[in-house]
């Protein structure tokens, strides 16, 4: 797999990011809504609002605002948050680790649970096992994440008391090292499972149909004819080919995952960037919003790159170049 390919893909990020920034900038500014309340608070006098608009350059024409903004972004400056009064980049960076941890864990959990379940279901389609697993997947797919989250909080955290209700660490905790890792894991388990639930639903169905498809192919028939046991047929011959589309979909769902993360972060009080995205959207905190869009764009591009690389690694037919 060539280094040139990776470099070229990374360079593609630049025009993509520029396009995304332009479109989001225009969308935010053309959509109704006025950031001045977030900026200046309520019941001020007109002169005050005018002054604050001027201070933040909101009284200038849209092209002028865009030009200033673009120039700043090139220099690595995302501007000042209207709401928080500090550098937008600081506000965003502070929230990124929590979101990466949450979405990364959810994705891993989803793959670990979904692929075996999908394979089991696909091995004997329409059998009792398949019906059960497919029903579960459909159920998870239809349940809204915020509802699953609230039910999980009520049942697992409040009634059973085996997980904390909210947060990423214990309140006021200064633990470091291993105790801190355990503390975070304890808080992470429930939100990560809830976030994983929708992905599980999608991946189970995908793996299942892939396996069903593979099980009727010639190479599988040949393997069976050689007298290889059903289990080995599934694991060695059907599944490796069946998961190829799963890998593709995982990359494509990175964006979807970040949307789910926003909801899970709110329900569980998880201090991530998704929550920041929603509150910034409500307040029209443009510098933070645009910065977040940029980060999400990078993440999606990166996820797709990783997908391509993974694809090349597991499918010998794919050669990157």
């Amino acid at each position, binding site marked *: 797999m060539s280094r040139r390919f990776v470099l070229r893909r990374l360079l593609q990020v630049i025009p993509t990011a520029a396009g995304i920034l332009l479109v989001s900038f225009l969308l935010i500014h053309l959509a109704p809504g006025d950031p001045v309340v977030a900026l200046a608070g309520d019941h001020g006098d007109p002169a005050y609002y005018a002054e604050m608009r001027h201070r933040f350059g909101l009284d200038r024409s849209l092209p002028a605002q865009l030009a200033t903004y673009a120039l700043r972004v090139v220099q690595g400056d995302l501007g000042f948050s209207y709401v928080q009064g500090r550098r937008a980049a600081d506000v965003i960076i502070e929230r990124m680790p929590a979101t990466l941890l949450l979405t990364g864990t959810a994705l891993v959990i989803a793959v670990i649970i979904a692929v075996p379940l999908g394979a089991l279901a696909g091995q004997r389609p329409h059998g009792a096992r398949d019906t059960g697993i497919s029903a579960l997947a459909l159920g998870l797919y239809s349940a809204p994440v915020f509802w699953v989250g609230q039910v999980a909080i009520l049942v697992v955290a409040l009634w059973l008391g085996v997980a904390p*209700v909210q947060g990423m660490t214990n309140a006021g905790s200064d633990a470091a090292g291993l105790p801190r890792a355990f503390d975070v894991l304890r808080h992470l388990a429930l939100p990560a499972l809830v976030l994983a639930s929708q992905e599980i639903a999608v991946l189970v169905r995908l793996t299942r149909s892939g396996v069903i498809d593979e099980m009727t192919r010639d190479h599988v028939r040949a393997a069976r004819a050689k007298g290889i046991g059903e289990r080995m047929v599934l694991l060695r011959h059907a599944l490796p080919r069946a998961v190829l589309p799963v890998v593709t979909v995982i990359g494509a769902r990175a964006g979807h995952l970040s949307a789910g993360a926003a909801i899970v972060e709110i329900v569980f009080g998880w201090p991530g960037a998704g929550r920041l995205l929603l509150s910034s959207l409500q*307040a029209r905190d443009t510098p933070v919003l645009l910065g977040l869009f940029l980060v999400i764009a990078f993440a999606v591009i990166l996820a797709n790159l990783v997908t391509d690389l993974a694809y090349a690694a597991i499918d010998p037919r794919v050669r990157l170049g």
Partner: protein
Amino acid sequence: MIATHARRHLRTVLGAVGLAAISACAGGAADRSDGVLVAAISDPGHLNPAITTNGGVHTAASLLYDGLLSLDDAMQPSPALAERWEVEDGGARYRFHLRRGVRWHDGQPFTAADVEFTFNEVLLEFHARTRASMGPALESVKALDDSTVEFRFRRPYAPLLQQLDVDEAPILPRHLFVGSDPLRNPANIAPVGTGPYRFAAYQGGREIRYSANRDYFGKAPALDGIVMRIIPDPATQVVALESGEVDWLFSVPGPERARLEKNPGVRLIQTALSPGGSNCITTLGFNLDRPSFQDVRVRRGIAHAIDRDQFVERVAFGAGRAADAPITSRIAFAHATGLPVPAWDTVRAGQLLDSAGWRRATGGVRVAKGVAGVADGTPFIIGFSVLPSQANYGDLLRAQLRAAGIDVRVEALEQAVFSQTVFTSRNFDTAIGAYCNGTDPEIGVRRMLVSSNIAPVPFSNMAGYRNAAVDSLFERAATALDVGERGRFYRAMQEIVVRDQPYVWLVETLSTRAHTTRCRGFAASSHFAATATCASRRR
């Protein structure tokens, strides 16, 4: 080869997840520091209450600061940073004598120069409410010596003593702010105040930590410290309280209140105070620029069609009372009783709407006949703009007005869009306004009624109401020092306004605080935890 790789990875990942599962089950005692855990709904971003009226900032920062005065639950001023004061020139000059020996949390002495600086350079520039209400009347704020501050006004200014508490006028340390841009000062994130608690740490999106100020000039806090957890979902906050993860909530959603009332480990406090604005009245405003609402008979007809008690019961879940005057009953000297507010009377409503030219047609919805500015045959369909959190006001209004032959279209708009649609472009028929009266009619009532405040500005005179007599009564009430006299002006004003009915005053809302029985001594005021005590946490 690939398979071995995958298997090895699989094993590592499975290990990590197993770890998570095990530790989740292990659960167990939390290593909480001693003190109280409270929940806040929003991440304030910074902790400087002098540069904003944002409720989230005030919730998180008020404990760190003081005003010259503090207000008790009945909104009577009492000494805080100022020990005593004199009012001269019939209310055009106020002299405050500051408490001596007060120190900032960093050890620097607090002096009159801090007060002068905070008003001139920060509050009158950036605190929207204080700037708008006090600014136009104020001539100067001057430190006469280290412990005396003088406020001079262009004409007598009556409400000053109600506007000097920690929410309306928190005092900042001059030595950290002088010569800087107050909006971007590092002390906004690492604040230094004089208040009962000191700032300890702020982790964005997670929590804010405070430690007790043992040198506080008032009664020193009994708690070692406070951790304020940022929990954005109100339902999660309630569960966190039930599970003992937090001890104090600033606001319990109406539907959850019944559940907490039954919980023996939880106590509820109902209050009209709120860091973002106190003594609020939820109000329906008519856009008087619209031809349909220019006839007072239509406005009074609609008011008669509204059952305010039902709003109290179903929308506010009993937390509040039906509003019966433009000024809240909580500001006792100014609130008028026995006003001719239209009572719920569907027959009278029908008569008034009929006489204004809106007649019942087949299908139940009224149509215009001879209404000035409205084409004959136009059905009476009105928009009602609300914030998403107030959508249930819209649902009930639609039900009530349908009975009177008016079709209401509820438009839920998020805050940024609402303020633009309603206040800037005035593109609405009727809209909801949670007008917080504050501690004096000058702060929160004047702005919705005087003609000089018809402006493209959030929470201005939404109706676009003009009445010279009302303007002049507000003017006279603001400059009269005698409380009885002020009350008479406000009463006269309210009589006119209720007749003109530019708004329908629906509910004087209360908010519900909640705390676990582990702790006691909380107050509804901004310094909510200054006098709280907690039993040690069961392990």
